[in-house]
């Protein structure tokens, strides 16, 4: 593995929050599981022209799940390689299939008008760079174990094989803005094992080795002559300078449902019921007593009380 430059950014990403950082060509953006696996969502923009941004629909040409060596690619008509996945563990499923959760998702599925959600968190994160909620785009979702059947219907798996300290490293092939948040669904789906945990975002400076990796990518895949930019358009809107991303000094995000409040209660199970808890733990499908009880209760609710709606109409919970 290439050695990276100095760690220049180290940010604890609390549940119900998101954060955007500029990442320069040759630098490595790392996401670390601070406690364990769960879904996170990312958006990626050209730092000097936010009209150019990642497109998961074009990235799906590499597969619904991306691997080491695959690329973050910008939407048509730009169609440029923006970043490359350098390192990850096998248990980390990088999904480009699902759509980010939003306030409307929780209203449609659970009749809740207040629940932390990716759309609002990402909007607050990119707001620091002058972008509005309408500037969000389809997300890249590391640690998002989607599965699909032969009819193309998808459902959610879990992240129970993910370990504390697992990480995803993404090499910047151009100057970008990357926004990441802890997915709002983690306490309502198997992706977070029905719990919300913090993650960590780190940025490593470019090194001679990472610069060499960038060089090698473009030797193999030289920039395409037909990647179009506004200088090629006969209809344009605004001045190029309007689309450069600049940090707003003193910006304060306004995250809803932050911080996540926790209620602890003591319950009593009969010996017979507790046997079921022990068996689930022994099988490795639950990590401890608390996980077994909480997962059972919330998963039961989602299976039996979730509202059928096209906004949340995937199989499983």
């Amino acid at each position, binding site marked *: 593995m290439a050695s990276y430059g100095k760690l220049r950014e180290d940010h604890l990403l609390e549940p119900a929050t998101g954060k955007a950082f500029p990442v320069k060509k040759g630098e490595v953006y790392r996401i670390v599981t601070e406690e364990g696996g769960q879904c996170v969502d990312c958006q990626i923009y050209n730092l000097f022209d936010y009209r150019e941004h990642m497109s998961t629909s074009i990235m799906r040409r590499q597969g619904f799940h991306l691997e080491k060596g695959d690329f973050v690619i910008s939407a048509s008509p730009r169609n440029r390689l923006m970043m490359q996945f350098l390192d990850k563990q096998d248990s980390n499923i990088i999904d480009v299939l699902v759509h980010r959760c939003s306030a409307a998702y929780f209203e449609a599925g659970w009749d809740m008008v207040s629940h932390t959600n990716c759309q609002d968190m990402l909007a607050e994160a990119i707001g620091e760079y002058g972008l509005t909620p309408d500037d969000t785009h389809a997300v890249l979702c590391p640690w998002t174990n989607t599965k699909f059947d032969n009819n193309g219907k998808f459902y959610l798996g879990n992240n129970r094989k993910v370990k504390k300290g697992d990480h995803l490293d993404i090499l910047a092939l151009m100057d970008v803005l990357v926004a990441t948040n802890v997915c709002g669904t983690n306490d309502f789906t198997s992706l977070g094992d029905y719990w919300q945990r913090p993650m960590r975002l780190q940025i490593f400076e470019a090194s001679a080795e990472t610069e060499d990796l960038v060089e090698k990518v473009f030797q193999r895949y030289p920039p395409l002559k037909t990647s179009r930019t506004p200088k090629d358009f006969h209809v344009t809107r605004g001045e190029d300078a309007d689309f450069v991303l600049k940090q707003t000094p003193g910006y304060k995000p306004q995250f809803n*449902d932050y911080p996540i409040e926790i209620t*602890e209660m*003591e319950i*009593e199970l009969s010996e017979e019921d507790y046997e079921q808890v022990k068996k689930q733990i022994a099988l490795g499908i639950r990590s401890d007593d608390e996980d077994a009880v909480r997962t059972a*209760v919330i998963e039961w*609710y989602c299976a*039996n009380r979730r509202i059928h709606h096209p906004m949340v109409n995937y199989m499983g919970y």
Partner: protein
Amino acid sequence: MADTKEQPTADKKVKIKVRFTHQQMVLLERLKQEGKFGQSYEELIPAVFREYVKQTFGLGGL
């Protein structure tokens, strides 16, 4: 003659501490209002756990 019948003893219980997010508590509160599984969290959580085991692993559980 001495009564040899065993005196019934209260079922032994196992205490478990469980944390929920405030967003999950909204769901639990709805189940409490529904009343089907009990009037308190202490009642309804074990009852829903049993329902889940039945639904997921079958009547006899695992």
